[in-house]
């Protein structure tokens, strides 16, 4: 029987992904046959069994982190607005002079900044550690 060349053998693989059964195979065909078996078998390496859960938890933590940041920024903005409004009202009704307000302007701005910094360190130092511990368990 005429031997098939690589081109013909691979075309057979392309069409049926199997080599013809019931015929005596030469060395090259046997090698192709063995190769096909190996190529379609799954490698021994794989991902840990809880990979999907880990990824999901990671995304949930990221989402939570993002929403907490949005919440903190919104709170800081509201705080700043409240303080500015309060100062404005006090200035309008003469309880405090504009010069005094200007004197303490950095303190007023510092208030929401301090709030955000505290929240940030809380997330970085406390919550991240807690999340990592949770992931490892």
């Amino acid at each position, binding site marked *: 029987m005429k031997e098939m060349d690589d081109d013909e053998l*691979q075309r057979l693989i392309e069409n049926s992904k199997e080599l013809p059964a019931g015929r005596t195979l030469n*060395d090259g065909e046997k*090698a192709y046959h063995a190769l096909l078996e190996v190529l*379609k078998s799954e490698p021994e*390496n794989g991902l840990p069994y809880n990979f999907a859960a880990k990824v999901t938890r990671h*995304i949930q933590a990221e989402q939570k982190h993002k929403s907490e940041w949005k919440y903190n920024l919104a709170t800081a903005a509201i705080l700043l607005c409240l303080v500015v409004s309060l100062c404005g009202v006090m200035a309008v009704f003469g309880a405090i002079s504009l010069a005094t307000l200007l004197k303490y302007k950095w303190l007023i701005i510092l208030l929401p900044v301090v709030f955000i910094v505290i929240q940030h360190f809380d997330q970085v130092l406390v919550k991240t550690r807690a999340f990592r511990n949770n992931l490892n368990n």
Partner: protein
Amino acid sequence: MFNEKEVVTRILNGDMRAFELLVKQYEKLVFYVTFRMVKEQQAAEDICQEVFIKVYNSLVRFNFQSKLSTWIARIAYLTAINYTRKYYREKSSEYPDDLENYHFTNDTPEHLLTKKDTANYVELLILQLPEKYRTVLTLYHLNEFSGPEIVQITGMPEGTVKNYLFRARKLLKEKLEVYLKNELP
């Protein structure tokens, strides 16, 4: 049965259990592609995580013009390519044009003796192939993507995909032929 449209809709509505289902469905696909490209278990795991985070963040832009598996495989392929470029500095221009004369590094008789079986031997050979050959072989045989799907995933022309497949299989077959001759009584 895994209904990709339903699962994607549920994920977009904030259902994280649906996302976990999606990860379970495609984790093998992503792992095989990335592992064959980076050849390191831990690096492959990290890339897989990055891939699924990208999938989650980009899912809103998936418009069902291709299969979900093809879309995810493309993200995995591009992420793994970026990783190899960043850490291995392996460039496509370094690949030999003449793959028939490609030399495997650990093909010594001593090494052959230590091989447990044909599967391990072939896996070792595959991991020594140039990156693009490994990828095309994996996508076609292990992940069972068709030629046009591999074109979509890798961005290579169809002729190149077929050529890589042919040459990689021929080379592996030649190596395996010698191995089987030495191995079989």
